[in-house]
């Protein structure tokens, strides 16, 4: 068992899988010689060469288009989009092409492709280096959307993603890259896609989060525990398709729910989670479902106060949880 940062875990996992399976290669802007702007692909070029760590043209549509073609004929591409904010030129290739390849050919063709991309705010990235993009892509059956929050999960989920026969959008919260360290088991292990994880058990309230907000939520739960309120923290891990069972099991136990995400509120992931709970577990609820999310603004401001105002954090989450406890 080694202690690794979130970033090291991702990098080492790609390295190991490229060593194991020569169909796996990485492509993206600056992923080769320099090892990626966040250094997520550092060392892959040196180890596996220019054929397998490809510095692509600055053209996101084709990064995905090329990867789809290669995946269709048996390769296992890992495409990096340098920042999630710049994935939109490739939206058509992801949603109309990769996600629909299996369905549209009645399983004649498939698209085993991983798209890794750093997303999220809190690093002074302003409007265009802070976006949460998951909601756009969680509306596209045929595409998995994964967002790990710990180094251990990042490894197990990334391995599953690479070996998965369908396309996976693998969202890496950039604030976690170097700020989160944790134990990563040695050797190979996979974590199935589509399974959430209870990161902290509790009996009073269910808090549902993912990515960077998972850590803020755990901090908030810690504060509440000192006040005698036991919060169960569910880490969604896979955002589409959602693990309804884990969500509902926890809600039936606690009867109170708070959903936390950094993405803007309206039509965000929390809306769907809330809808699932009201359809399936309405009778178990003792309080209205709460959401703590980013506000409905076009972007996250660059300046310190604006960014702080936008992002949910442990304080804001704790306040919501306390109110929910009192309800």
């Amino acid at each position, binding site marked *: 068992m080694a202690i690794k940062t979130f970033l090291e875990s991702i990098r080492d996992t790609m390295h190991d899988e490229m060593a194991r399976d020569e169909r796996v*290669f990485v492509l993206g802007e600056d992923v080769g010689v320099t090892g990626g702007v966040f250094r997520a692909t550092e060392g892959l070029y040196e180890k596996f060469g220019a*054929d397998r760590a490809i510095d*692509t*043209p600055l*053209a996101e*549509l*084709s990064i*995905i*288009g*090329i*990867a*789809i*073609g*290669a*995946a*269709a*004929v*048996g*390769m296992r591409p890992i495409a990096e989009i340098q920042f999630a904010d710049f994935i939109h*030129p490739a939206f*058509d*290739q992801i949603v*109309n*092409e990769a996600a*629909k*390849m*299996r*369905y*549209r*050919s*009645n*399983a*004649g*063709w*498939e698209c085993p492709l991983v798209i890794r991309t750093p997303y999220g705010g809190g690093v002074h990235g302003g409007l265009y280096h802070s976006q949460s993009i998951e909601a756009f892509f969680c509306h596209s*059956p*045929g595409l998995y959307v994964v967002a790990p929050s710990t180094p251990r999960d990042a490894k197990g989920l990334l391995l*599953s993603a690479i*070996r*998965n*026969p*369908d396309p996976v959008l693998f969202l890496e919260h950039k604030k976690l890259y170097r700020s989160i360290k944790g134990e990563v088991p040695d050797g190979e292990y996979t974590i199935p896609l589509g399974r959430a994880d209870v990161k902290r058990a509790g009996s009073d309230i269910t808090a549902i989060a993912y990515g960077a907000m998972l850590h803020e939520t755990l901090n908030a739960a810690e504060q509440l525990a000192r006040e005698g309120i036991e919060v169960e923290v569910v880490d969604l891990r896979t955002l589409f398709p959602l693990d309804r069972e884990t969500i509902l099991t926890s809600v039936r136990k606690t009867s109170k729910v708070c959903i936390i995400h950094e993405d803007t509120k309206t039509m965000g992931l929390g809306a769907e989670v809330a809808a699932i709970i009201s359809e399936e577990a309405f009778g178990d609820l003792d309080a209205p479902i709460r959401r703590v999310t980013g506000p409905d603004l076009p972007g996250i401001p660059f300046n310190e106060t604006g960014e702080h105002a936008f992002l949910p954090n442990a304080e804001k989450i704790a306040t919501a949880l306390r109110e929910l406890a009192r309800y």
Partner: protein
Amino acid sequence: MATQVAEKIALEITHRALGLSDDQVLEMYWAMLLARRLDERMWILHRPHLVAFHISGIGHEAAQVGAAFALKRGYDYAHPYYRDMATVLTLGMTPRDLMLALFGRQGEPSSNGRQMPSHFGSRALNIVSGSSPVATQIPQAAGIAFAIKYKKTDQVVLTCFGEGSTAEGDFHEGLNWAGIHTLPVIFLCQNNQYAISVPAAKQMAVPNVADRARAYGIPGVIVDGNDVLDVYGAMRDAVARARRGQGATLIEAKTYRPVPHSSDDDDRTYRSRAEVEEWKKRDPILRMQEYLTRVNLLNAQKIVESDARAKQVVDDADEFARNAPYPPAEAALGNVWGQVKS
């Protein structure tokens, strides 16, 4: 002396000069003819709304058969577009397959009737499944070529699209990759001069699509898209280049679509009947018949016979598809996700 004369005559026979046997060139004719008769039937079936939609390859048969004929069937890859009926017929799809797609019936091989007709795909024939957004197949074809290069086989990829689609960013990005990485892919633009109603001059400021090849460091070749042998010759050279590891070629086949864009289009709103009639005189099937007659491979009687044979095949496909069941409703639900294989 006599043998020299015979050789000289042989070289004047275009198909032989291209290395095609008499049988092969007759096979080309048959593929073009079958595609045409099948396509004509599809229009007829649409008229009383027996089928919901048809998009036609009429007029494009020479470009398509000439190109597909230069591939190794089932070995090379094709990533075609919706007009490529003659391409996929040449590559091994059957008239029954295509009729099943037209009627949206059970067992249709491209998608089991999930997609609109003419969204071809077959794993067995290495025909990659296509979608409706134009030009998306272009970077994907470059991606297939990228994988081929990585695996070090001598396969090639053919991808097809219209001239209007070359205005899309996908075209630029795909060709850019092919140039940078010297990829074994042939980009065949079937330039029929219109994108629905919009003429080519409103898609680009250069006279030829092929002119754009220079910007990507690959050869751009213009061929007469209504002359199957002209297309075949250029395609054969491009395939040979690609197999030798010398990279991609952009081929522009100049042609015309003498029918509306699709069964939903009325082309009288954007072009004159005189223009259409003028182009009908250069019909690729007629041109092929003239050529084959000139080289003594076809005559009036054989033309009638092959037409009768084509009608039989089309009748069979039509009847087969018409009587095929629809997929059961549950068939819409499956094959969203695959299973992990270890």
